[in-house]
């Protein structure tokens, strides 16, 4: 399965990765190779295999609906680049 150059740019964009325009051709080739490698799995007949949601054959445990967390805002915000009045600040995003 071959990716085109625009798809490489789109993937980089979705991944929030900045890539050098000059390297796109190489990414295109490498990523396409990886897809081809994975694509070999399609050759296996899985019609009788139930899709797996999780590798462990276990069931989700449930938590009681109780508030157990306290306010640790000051502690958490020590690692935030910028905060103000309790808010985390980020570059302006307006949809």
């Amino acid at each position, binding site marked *: 399965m071959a990716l085109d150059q625009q798809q490489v740019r789109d993937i980089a964009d979705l991944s929030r990765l900045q890539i050098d325009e000059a390297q796109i051709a190489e990414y295109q080739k490498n990523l396409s190779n990886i897809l081809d490698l994975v694509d070999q799995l399609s050759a296996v007949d899985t019609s009788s295999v139930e899709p797996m*949601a999780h590798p462990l054959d276990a069931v*989700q445990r449930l*938590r009681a609906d109780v*508030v157990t967390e306290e306010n640790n805002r000051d502690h*958490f915000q020590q690692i935030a680049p910028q905060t103000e009045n309790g808010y985390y600040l*980020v570059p*302006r995003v307006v949809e």
Partner: protein
Amino acid sequence: MEWEVVIGLEIHAQLATKSKIFSGASTAYGADANTQACAIDLGLPGVLPAFNEEALRMAVKFGLAIDAEIGLKSVFDRKNYFYPDSPKGYQTTQLHHPIVGIGHIDIELEDGSSKRINVTRAHLEEDAGKSVHEGFNGMSGIDLNRAGTPLIEIVSEPEMRNAKEAAAYFRKMHSIVTYLGICDGDLSQGSMRCDCNVSLRPKGQEEFGTRTEIKNVNSFRNVERAIDAEIARQMDILEDGGKIIQETRLYDADKNETRAMRSKEVANDYRYFPCPDLLPVIIDDNYVEAVRATLPELPDAKRARFAHAHGLSAIDAAVLAANRELAHYFETAAKIANDYKLAANWVQGDVSATLNRLEISIGELAVSAEQLGRILQLIKDNTLNNGGAKEVFNALVEGKGDGSAESVDKLVDSLGLKQVSDSGAIEAIVAEVLAANPKLVEGYLATPEDKRAKAIGPFIGLVRKAAKGVNPQVVMDVLQKKLSEL
């Protein structure tokens, strides 16, 4: 050309749990920014989500209420997207195996008929945080208190054909989730939000037209207005031979128009995959039946009971059953008075008028259901006439009571509203009035028999003036008797 409108709704309802869907942080509304956002909600490395059993129970409850298939095995998936109000970089949701499958509700149309709307599915997911774009010097402030609040997203089939049907559907869902107690239903706080998918197609055409999605409409009225505005916009474009672009739009209530959200250059690719941090959620029939046993009487059943068992009109029954608190208030008063019709008249009349005038909800009304019930009892045993009852009610509205039924009796006494029904006392008053107005009596006696019913009116007025609070029926009886003896 004649167009057919196709509408489907996606409703997000916040579940009324105490803690978040995957963490022990509080979901209480209105706290200081980020004081209820713990390490799990912040998406810090190394944390593990732990699924809230109450969120599961509430979702199953909802599924049973809309007669839906319940997913005995449901699976959480990650929906990947980048936005700062979702610090994990993905939303935990359910894609292929939702907790609630195909179900349906019935909506009531204006002509009194009802229409079944199918629900495609409802799944559990987490809410995002909130971004504030003003007041941070060109930056955006992020409050993650809401991040991780449990939601059910309820997806309808595209079966609504006009904005009124869509609004009726949203109202009905609101009624159901608040009856179930799984959502507080507070639209102003965003507890329920609605995305409206709207498209047009030439009448008779099978294939759907291109749709747009109006995001986050948060009132019943705006659902109707936003959809109508979008229908008009699309119709203009189509009539001019143009094409609709599939896009997400926002409704501007001030301008009553929808506008496109800034479209992304690259189409979103959510790259869903099963969440490796959460195992499949397995429940069995015993679990489902135990939840079913906790279902309250739902709006449709209550409406039918009000109409059939208690003789209310279809409209009265629908209005009184639509809101759980109002229905409870009504029924409490009706049971005390042992008169559903009288209680319905009062709740739809003076009670509703007062709520509208003061812009309050039934829970905030100073007159308790017990007090209204007592007032109705006093009307029924002729202690109060209608005017006196209204006076007591209004006094209670103004806070002259303590919520107890006894305070109604005290008010009746202190305001001197007790009707005089003792015919002896009334006979004396009537005798005085007749003696004092010989000309009126003469006129009455000169009136032909068949017109006397009308001619008795002035006497009633005089008697009631002479003694406030006399029972008009007793006055009438005594007057007729005395006059016939002349």
